């Protein structure tokens, strides 16, 4: 069936095609730009610490270590095992400190508190501190990314 009037002229169609093509071409130029503005970063799979550095820690005592560019905390557990946390507040990314007297982690930025197990107990933090898995391999203590549960 042939329509008597047309709602969409050939000119409109071609203009639309041209504008759409030009628009998508310009948008595609953004791709390499947006790709290039974020440099690659890979978190280490593991950090090997000399066991000697952590010898003589009492049970429940905590010592810091470097989890790449972030602070980490390594604690000697009651059974002789180890527990490790990434010392970064889950609220807005500030580095936390461990207050030995109170056995709590504290974030000074917005007054956030975590208990010795890294659980968020007061203030704005929405989640517990991130845990890392720890194993002792010979003379080294190896801290690894905890597999996502």
């Amino acid at each position, binding site marked *: 069936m042939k329509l008597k009037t047309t709602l969409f002229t050939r000119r409109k169609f071609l203009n639309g095609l041209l504008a759409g093509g030009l628009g998508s071409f310009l948008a595609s130029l953004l791709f390499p730009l947006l790709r290039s503005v974020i440099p690659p970063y890979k978190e280490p799979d593991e950090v090997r610490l000399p066991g000697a550095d952590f010898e003589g820690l009492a049970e429940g005592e905590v010592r810091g270590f470097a989890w790449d560019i972030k*602070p980490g905390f390594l604690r000697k557990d009651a059974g002789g095992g180890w527990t490790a946390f990434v*010392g970064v507040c889950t609220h807005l*990314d500030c*580095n936390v400190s461990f207050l030995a007297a109170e056995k709590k982690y504290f974030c000074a930025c917005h007054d956030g508190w975590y208990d010795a197990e890294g659980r968020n107990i007061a203030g704005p933090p929405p989640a517990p501190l991130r845990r890392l898995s720890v194993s002792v391999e010979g003379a080294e203590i190896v801290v690894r990314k905890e597999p996502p549960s």
Partner: protein
Amino acid sequence: MSARGWWPALRRWLDDRLGLEAVLGFLRNKPVPRSGHTIWMYTGSAILIFFAVQVVTGVVLAFYYRPTLEEANASVARIMTDVPLGWVVRSIHSWSATFMIVFVFIHLVSIWILKSYRKPRELTWMTGVLLLFCALFFGFTGYLLPWDDLSLSATKVGTDIPRALPVIGDFFTKLLRGGEDVSGETLSRFFTIHVSILPLALLAVLALHVFLIQKLGMSLPLEAEVNKKRLPHFPFWPNFVFREAVLWLVLFGVLLTAAFFLPPGLGRAADLRAPAPEGIKPEWYFLFLFQTLKIFPAKVWFLKGETLAVLCILAGVLFFFFVPLIDNKPASRKGKILTVVAWLFVVYALAMSAWSLAGPKPAAGAEEGLSAGPRSAGERTGMYVFLAWTWTMIVFLAFVLRGKVREVDKLHAAGFFGAGDDPHRK
């Protein structure tokens, strides 16, 4: 060519090519209404003065500053100790930023309360809000550059805020930081934003803002707008500009005095793995946002507290930007609710800032860094002499300008300028 002849000749030559006369003629005929509101019209050019100071001092600082993890803090220390009068330049840059933001806020709140953003000046307001964002972003990026404990923590918090937004937030955080975390990448990125991207963006928006102000003319008080009342007025050039110049001089003197006597110090170089220091604070103009983030609990209903806080702030920002479209009442409506909202905002910001300042202070001795100031008796004496000379000149020039203002006011009253007997070209 005689000494008398070359200037008019040059001027004519330039005018033939640039059309300067048209611009000057426009300024001479641009009427500034005289009413109780005129005083707020001086705030805009005060911002410009401080911005000019920022450009000049910023260029000098950029000659010496090095945006790398290893050298950033040390290069600022060098500016403060080695570079001749470097501490003064840095102090002026820091104080001028503060004064600029103060005047931006005064400018903005006065325009809000006077409802000058109403038709046809909606876009003037919106470009103004964009300029405010530029100014705040200038402050935020500049705060990191000295790379000390406080600035690192403030930047970690500030750049993590977009992440609370769903979908696009994560990308923005990575874009700002140059990766997952604040690192050396962030520093060079903030430097580039501070010295290249923001100046270009600000100048572009500023050009549009100033163009719109010229095109649309100054707003009148509501009563006058409604009754089509003719207000007394005077020409922008020279009557208004001479008055402005007095304010510029005084502000410049206050700026120099503050910069000489209260130079900012420098904290210890930031350590990416050190815990956030007690009592961290952002720049004063972010305190109310900082405190807002503090009071939201971890979870509200089903949302993370920080997501809710950020969404609230974003809603506030959007409301702010679109105020002229929301309050699109005819000029006859006073818009009392929005006036109340503006005052509530002022009270909220002041109260939250005060609360934040009353919070934990940095532990004593934590700020063991570098303090600035004159480094010798000679430099101290020179400082006093320079200030005395500056203030003498300011008082003298203000006196001369007062005479000029009286003269041009008389000329205007006598109709000499013939400036816009029609106060509002619609």
